[in-house]
Structure formats: C-alpha cells, structure tokens
C-alpha cells in the first residue's frame, strides 16, 4: 500500500512516501526548489518521492494532507473578529492567499497528482506531529508531546501512542503559544521568525536570564502543570503583521533590534531569559504528562522540539527515561506524520520498523557525480571507500575545511553526515573561520560536533544516543580540547554516529580519532547563510566554489579547491539568498 503525505502552504513544505508502513523517501521542497523554507505545493518533492518509490501518482492508494485547512481558516476568522478593527492589515494580507489557494487544497492536490483518483485525507496538525514522532520511534507505547507555533487551534498537545493508535488528551489553544512566544522574542531580537529561532537558542548562553521573573509575572502565566496563558497586551501577532507591540518594547526598554545590527548584553540577557522560560514550560509540561500517563518514554515533535537545550533538560530532569524527537520536528515532518496516521491509525495496519537514521532524500551515484563534474570541467581524483576515509580524515586533521557529500540527503533541518561541512574541532580559530569565511554568518553562532556513539559518554555528559543532533549536553571537564564545538557555557549540540546508521561517516570519525585521539569532528550543514542545504552534486560544487572550503568529497571523488577552474557566474550569488 502506497500513501503519500504532503505538508505545505505555511512553511517548509515537504512530501513523504510510505510503502507498507515504511518511509521510502521524504524530502523538503526547499532542497529542490532552492528557496529556503519554501511553502508552495511540493511538486518537486512529490515527483522525487514517487520516483524513488518507482511509482506514478496513479499507483497511490491514499494521499494525506497534514492539517485541516478549514479549522485553520476558522481560527483566522475568529481572530479577525476578536481583534476587529485592528486586524484589517492582517486580514488584507492573508485573505487573498486563502481565496486563491488555501481554500482549494483538494483540487490543487488532484491537479498536481493527475491521474490519481483515490481519497485525499486530512489529519489535524498536531495529530500529524504526534504521528510523525510516535510511529517512527522505537516505542510500542509512549507519551507524546507536541509543541509548536500554531496548527489549527492547538499550539501544544499531549497524548499517548500505543501500537498503531494515538489518542490526544489535552491541548493549549491559540493565541497562547510557546512557539509563538519564542518567535515573538526572535522577532524582537532582530531575527527572522519561523527561521532563526535557533539563533536565539545559540545566543542565550552569552547572557544571564535576568528577566525570567518579570516575564513569568507579567507576560506568561504558567501553571505547575505546564499549561499557560500569555498576556496578549504585549503581542501583536494575533492582529498585526508584527509579533510584538509597543507595550512589549516598553517592557524591555526599547524597540526591536534592527536586523544585522550590533548586539549587546541586553540582547544576550533577553535571549537567555526567554530560553529559560521556554525550558521551564517544557519541563513542567513533561513532568505533568508523566504524572498523567505514568509512562517512562516520551516522543516529541513540533517546532519547539527542535529546541535541543530544552530536550536535553527533559531527559536529564524529568522522570522520562527515554526520549525520541522526530528529526524533522517542524512542519516538514507533518508529511511523514499524516502518511503514518492514514496507514497505521485509519488503516489499522501494524507498524513498521523504527527509524535508525534520517537519510531519506535524493542520492546520486558515482556515474551521475562524475557526469556532472566532467560537464563542469572540474578536476578530481577517484578514491576507494578506504581512501575516502583515510584522506578526508587526514585533511581534516591538517586543518582543512571539507564539503562532505555522501549517500542520501537528510530529512529535517540538520545535516547529519550526508550533506555536511566538516572540520577539526580542536582548532580554536575554526569556529570563526567557518562562520566568517565559509558560512558567511554571525560570529556568535556555535558549531555542533559529531561523535562516535560508543565514545559519546566519554566526551559529553550524556548517557543516551542523539542521532539527530537534537540534544544538548555538557562537554566533560577533562575533554575541553575541542573548543570549536564547545559553546560558552561548555555545552554542545551533539550528534552521536553509529556504524549501522552511517558506515562511511562513522569510519571517517574513527580514522580522525586514530590520527588525533579525538573521536569528534565539527559537523555543520552544507550551505551558506540563507541557502537551503545542498541537495545535488551541482548545488554542492557551486557552494564549494563560492566559499573558502578547501576540499570537496562527492561520493568517491575528491576535489581540491586550488585545482579547480575559476567559476564563471552571471549573477552575484550573495544576492540569490535572502539572509535568514
């Protein structure tokens, strides 16, 4: 049975193909359209997942859409009514899109999937999130927590998954939203909403959470059970085109920071404060859910589940013993979720195996890579598997920055060794080099380590796997020789790598350890600021040539920058991508 899951029309559209309960392929549209957070119908992603599955649209048995458009429409209209007449600007901006597109989801899907004639099924947004984490988790039974900006009405929900069924018990409803609260601070701090929330998380350790008490007293009314209400006096996202208003600015003593301007202790402290509040809410929610369900396993999804600092605290400070976070925890993962919901819950089918990796995207074999490189006039050497590992590890140990393009592309926002930039974590200058010369991004942003799973607890204060880079742990005191992946508070957002999930990447880190004694490499996504992570050899080669990367490893092909012919481009690539 083939089920296609689709998420789109808000941000991060994606498609996933499920065959007999197993995800054959899943891909975000942005990677193929090269438009960051692309929200359009994922025509390219659909085409890819169907091709990967070796079928056409006519062979599908069902199509699932990840939310309920009319409930969302109702929520928006209710908001306009409640905030009349201030909501006119928002109404004026949003309604044309609804009138032209969002009210016509079934006919758009039918048109795009001709000659498909089967059912189009809709799941609630938070059910899609819940299904996206529970059904691919290794747990037969688990508590589920989903937290994001907003779906239809729900902004957070919890329930229990058992076998092929999920029951959601309770929810927090719009406009009271932890995700939107965090986004409001993201906006106030001068970053892009729905895109740069992770920057606030990265900024937080530089500051002191001095505003927590004030926020808790005045802005967030938080109960012991993690439920909360926001004081909407401070926000404008319910009626306007911005997230916060004058009252918010007065509260923090100034207007929102202008993007790309200098940051001071004030911004650091605000970031630290909202991060602390976010963690506190998630922790209280998790403790309450444990109390209600008495289960020891927790699955999490929704954009807030990408807050790996909070996730790390959930596993350390709540009674939950095991945690599974969906690697594509944001809306893109909804495509996987709705497909599973349709197949497992509605179709009452048994569950397939748990995910062991997130390499669900396009792959290019050596012949395709070579074809591209020859066409581009690139100079390269072809290596064996063993030589790829040996030479790349040596190059990293020698201080080179490597573009690493292997196998299938990752699903979700993190690069996990399929489309990564790798470097030596021992070099204290490497962070600045990568930020300034390779990624062209803000200097404060930390880099994440990939560590051999069997060495993870030796180097980091962690006793579970973090295969999707969604947990933060402290670097052990005796192991602080990896400054480039150690944040100012000695934390690191780590990925644990197993040979089962990623043999070549595991061997590479193993070889790097043999050379240096350190089983850790810097792993950052293969892109520049504002660009979607690379997908094809062409994307990778362009990114390699445009930046100061030293070498590129494309499958079995090793390219050295110095040997490449100059790149001829008609446009200035820096104007191609909007800064995130």
């Amino acid at each position, binding site marked *: 049975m083939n089920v296609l899951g689709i998420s789109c029309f808000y941000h991060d559209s994606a498609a996933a193909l499920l065959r007999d309960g197993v995800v054959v392929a899943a891909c975000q549209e942005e990677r193929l359209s090269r438009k960051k957070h692309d929200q359009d119908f994922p025509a390219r992603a659909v085409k890819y997942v169907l091709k990967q599955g070796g079928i056409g649209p006519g062979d599908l048995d069902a199509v699932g859409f990840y939310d309920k458009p009319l409930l969302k429409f*109702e929520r928006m209209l209710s908001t306009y009514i409640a905030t009349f007449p201030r909501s006119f600007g928002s109404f004026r901006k949003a309604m044309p899109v609804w009138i032209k597109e969002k009210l016509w989801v079934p006919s758009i899907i039918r048109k795009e999937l001709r000659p498909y004639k089967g059912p189009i099924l809709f799941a609630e947004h938070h059910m899609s999130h819940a299904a996206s984490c529970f059904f691919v988790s290794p747990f037969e039974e688990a508590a589920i927590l989903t937290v994001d900006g907003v779906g239809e009405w729900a902004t957070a929900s919890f329930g229990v998954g058992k076998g092929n069924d999920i029951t959601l018990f309770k929810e927090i409803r719009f406009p009271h939203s932890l995700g939107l609260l965090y986004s409001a601070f993201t906006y106030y701090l001068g970053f892009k909403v729905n895109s740069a929330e992770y920057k606030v998380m990265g900024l937080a350790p530089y500051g002191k959470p001095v505003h927590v008490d004030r926020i808790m007293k005045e802005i967030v009314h938080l109960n012991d059970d993690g439920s909360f209400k926001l004081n909407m006096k401070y926000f404008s996202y319910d009626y306007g085109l911005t997230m916060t208003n004058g009252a918010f600015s007065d509260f923090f003593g100034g207007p929102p920071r202008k993007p790309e301007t200098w940051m001071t202790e004030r911004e650091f402290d605000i970031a630290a404060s909202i991060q602390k509040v976010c963690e506190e809410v998630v922790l209280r929610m998790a403790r309450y859910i444990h109390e209600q369900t008495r289960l020891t396993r927790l699955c999490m999804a929704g954009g807030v589940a990408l807050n790996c600092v909070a996730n790390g605290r959930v596993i350390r400070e709540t009674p939950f013993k095991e945690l599974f976070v969906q690697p594509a925890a944001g809306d893109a993962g909804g495509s996987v979720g709705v497909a599973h919901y349709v197949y497992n819950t509605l179709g009452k089918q048994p569950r397939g195996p748990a995910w062991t990796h997130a390499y669900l995207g396009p792959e290019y074999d050596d012949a395709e890579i070579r074809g591209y490189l020859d066409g581009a006039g690139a100079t390269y050497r072809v290596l064996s598997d063993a030589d790829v590992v040996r030479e790349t590890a040596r190059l990293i140990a020698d201080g080179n920055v490597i573009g690493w393009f292997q196998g299938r592309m990752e699903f979700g926002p993190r690069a996990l060794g399929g489309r990564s930039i790798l470097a030596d974590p021992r070099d204290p200058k490497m962070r600045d080099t990568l930020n300034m010369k390779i990624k062209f991004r803000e200097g404060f942003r930390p880099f994440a380590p990939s560590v051999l799973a069997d060495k993870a607890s030796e180097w980091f204060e962690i006793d579970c796997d973090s295969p999707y880079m969604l947990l933060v742990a402290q670097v052990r005191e005796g192991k602080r020789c990896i400054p480039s992946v150690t944040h100012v508070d000695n934390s690191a957002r780590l990925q644990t790598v197993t040979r089962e999930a990623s043999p070549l990447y595991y061997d590479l880190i193993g070889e790097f350890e043999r050379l240096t004694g350190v089983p850790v490499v810097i792993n950052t996504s293969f892109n520049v600021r504002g660009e979607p992570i690379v997908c094809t050899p062409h994307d990778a080669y362009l990114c390699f040539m445009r930046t100061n990367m030293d070498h590129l490893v494309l499958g079995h092909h090793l390219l050295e920058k110095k040997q490449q012919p100059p790149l001829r481009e008609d446009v200035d690539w820096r104007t191609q991508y909007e800064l995130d």
Partner: protein
Amino acid sequence: MAFEESREKLGIIGELWAFMRVRKKWWLGPIVMMLALLGLLVIFTQGSAVAPFIYTLF
C-alpha cells in the same frame, strides 16, 4: 476533466456547510460564504478572457 475539476472546486461550498453544521459555527456563515464566493469567482475565471477583470484581484 474540466467537469471533474469544477465539481471538486464547487465541493468547497458543501464542505464549508458541513463544517458549520458539524462544528456548530453558524456565526461564521456570512464571512465564510462571502469569501468562498469571491474565491469561486477568482478560481473559475482564471485563464479565461475575462481574466483582466478578475485575475488581478487578490
């Protein structure tokens, strides 16, 4: 094909009606119907010769 497409699009009216009935949201009626009719107007005239009067709206 055109007939099926039109039927699919017109289905929104029934869907909105069912929504208000099942979820008991009658007070949404005037707004929803007004917007849906505008939507139908835009959708059905897309690509036709009267498009200059319509397609530029929204």
